């Protein structure tokens, strides 16, 4: 009996080793699996019509009920750091421009966009409005970075799609 059991275990282990494992564990490099983007399927053993709440009890992954961790910054740590630096810069700009032009509309919905809109305009000694180029560049750079970050998020999903 020992040899039979040993053979069974060996066959299973070899099978897994040769074909690779079916399971793909989420890592911070991947987009966090949510109900919207996950490939997970209910195994169907406790179908809802017959089991009511038991279906949820057995089949609902616990990580669906939590907010995805902020992996967008972890996704590309370099860009994440740039983004944070820009935000720091924006806060400085915001402090100046907010005082100068508090009522200017924001270019976008993000805080960095709003900051960029207000931070780029100032007055010269003659009273004309001028744009502070560096400030604008910084601000737009910040926007760009943020957009990149968002695209990276989408890219993460694309990567997942690529695995399909």
């Amino acid at each position: 009996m020992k040899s039979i059991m040993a053979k069974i275990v060996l066959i299973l282990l070899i099978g897994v080793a040769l074909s690779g494992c079916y399971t793909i564990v989420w890592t911070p490099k991947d987009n966090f699996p949510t109900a919207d983007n996950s490939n997970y399927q209910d195994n169907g053993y406790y179908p809802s019509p017959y089991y009511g709440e038991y279906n949820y009890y057995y089949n609902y992954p616990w990580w669906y009920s939590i907010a995805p961790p902020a992996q967008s910054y972890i996704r590309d740590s370099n860009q994440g750091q740039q983004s944070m630096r820009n935000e720091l810069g924006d806060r400085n700009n915001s402090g100046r421009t907010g005082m100068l032009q508090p009522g200017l509309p924001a270019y976008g919905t993000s805080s960095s966009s709003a900051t960029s809109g207000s931070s780029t305009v100032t007055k010269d000694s003659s009273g004309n409005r001028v744009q502070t180029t560096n400030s604008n560049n910084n601000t737009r750079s910040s926007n760009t970075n943020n957009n990149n970050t968002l695209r990276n998020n989408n890219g993460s999903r694309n990567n997942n799609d690529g695995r399909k």
Partner: protein
Amino acid sequence: MKSFSSYCSKLITAAAVVFCITTVSAQNQNDALRLGIPGLGSNARALGMGDSYIGLSDDAGAAFFNPAGWGLLKSLEFTGGLSYNTYGNNTTFMNEYSNYSNSATRLSDLSFALPFPTIRGSLVFAVSYHTTKDFTGALKFNGYNGSNNSMIQNLNDNYSNIPYDLYLTDTNFNTAINGRLNQSGSILESGALHNWTFSGAIEAYKNLFVGLNLNFISGTYNNNNDYYEDDLKGIYSNVETDPGNAATMGFRKFYLNRILNWDISGWDAKFGVLYQIQNSARVGLTVQFPKTYTVKESFTVNGYSLFNTGQQYNLNSSNYSDNVQYDIVTPFELGAGFSVNVASLILSGQATIIDYSQLKFDNADGLSTQYIASQNKNIKDLLKSVINYNVGAEYTFPVIGIRLRAGYFVQPSAYQGDPSSFDRQYVTGGIGYLAGGSVAIDLGYAHGWWSTYGDNYGTDLSRTYQDIKNDQLILSMTYRF
């Protein structure tokens, strides 16, 4: 004719050994069986379904039945449980009836499971502390043995100095005692085996789960055996058991108390596979690797003799008590099971092969190599391979969240030639309720019965015939979040 004589021979051989729980002295195959026979586990849902769980195991029961079942978990799971175990023994001894019972309540299960977030498949780790086996037991007997044998004579014949030390023999180790004594006694057993189980399971292919339980075992076993022989008929009232010693005139009572304490530790591993077929069936396979138990045994003997003169002689306990240590290694166990879900009804079944003749003593300290070898030979000669089988069912009422369960299972006797009445049979039932979609409360109950017998000494000289009833109740609460 030959097969009948062979059968009788086996019966006689089986009877020739000390059987069941009535003797506490040297190690024998019953000690190995005590650890080798599987326990009932500690999962209320599984118990309600007749412990037929290898093909289901989608909760903390995976720590005992099939580790691959952990892979089916998608929620964080915390489980806690209590068990209540009663053991009743109706004994017939010399046509006299006695009954005795014992019970134990204990924390049966604490476990936590952590499924890792996966993009595909399943990876789950878990840790559990659970009771795998309960040693609660009891025996009481009282009857007049009119034959010309006794424990005193048996000890004396087997070169024990106990009768001599109690002045029940002369200085040449001859005893005037020749049976015809009232014999009575009781045994209380307690203790349990507990596992710290560390588990991991993964979905290796789609719907194919593999898992491993690594168990670290701890436990205790205690056996308190009181035995009395009384001359109620005054047969020895005019006899000096130590001729020339007037204080030994009129033997009245012989008492022997033996206390056996085990401190048990060990480890083992269990490998499991579970495959879900379509949406409605699962099959499971488990390999229980040999369990290695290290037993630190403390054996204490006390006793006295009492005479009509009022004289009492007490035994010097230190002369007959000792501490030894040895390993008991159990055989491989191969289990296979299935479950089928038809609408709201789950039906499950399983079978487990255990070859008890592969039980063995090993690594003894304080026991001779020859003695251990002879015990292992007895195990080979007396025990056999068995197939345990379990069946169970569960019906769910989805609207009210209630589940009803029923089951039946059999653990055949490990002894060759035993009749089927010696098989341990259990009927089980249970109920479960899901509160708020995340808290499951389960109650499992099992009623078991079987027959056995035991010899106080010798072979069929002072035998107790026992009808055992065992009831176990497990209450558990599982929180998934």
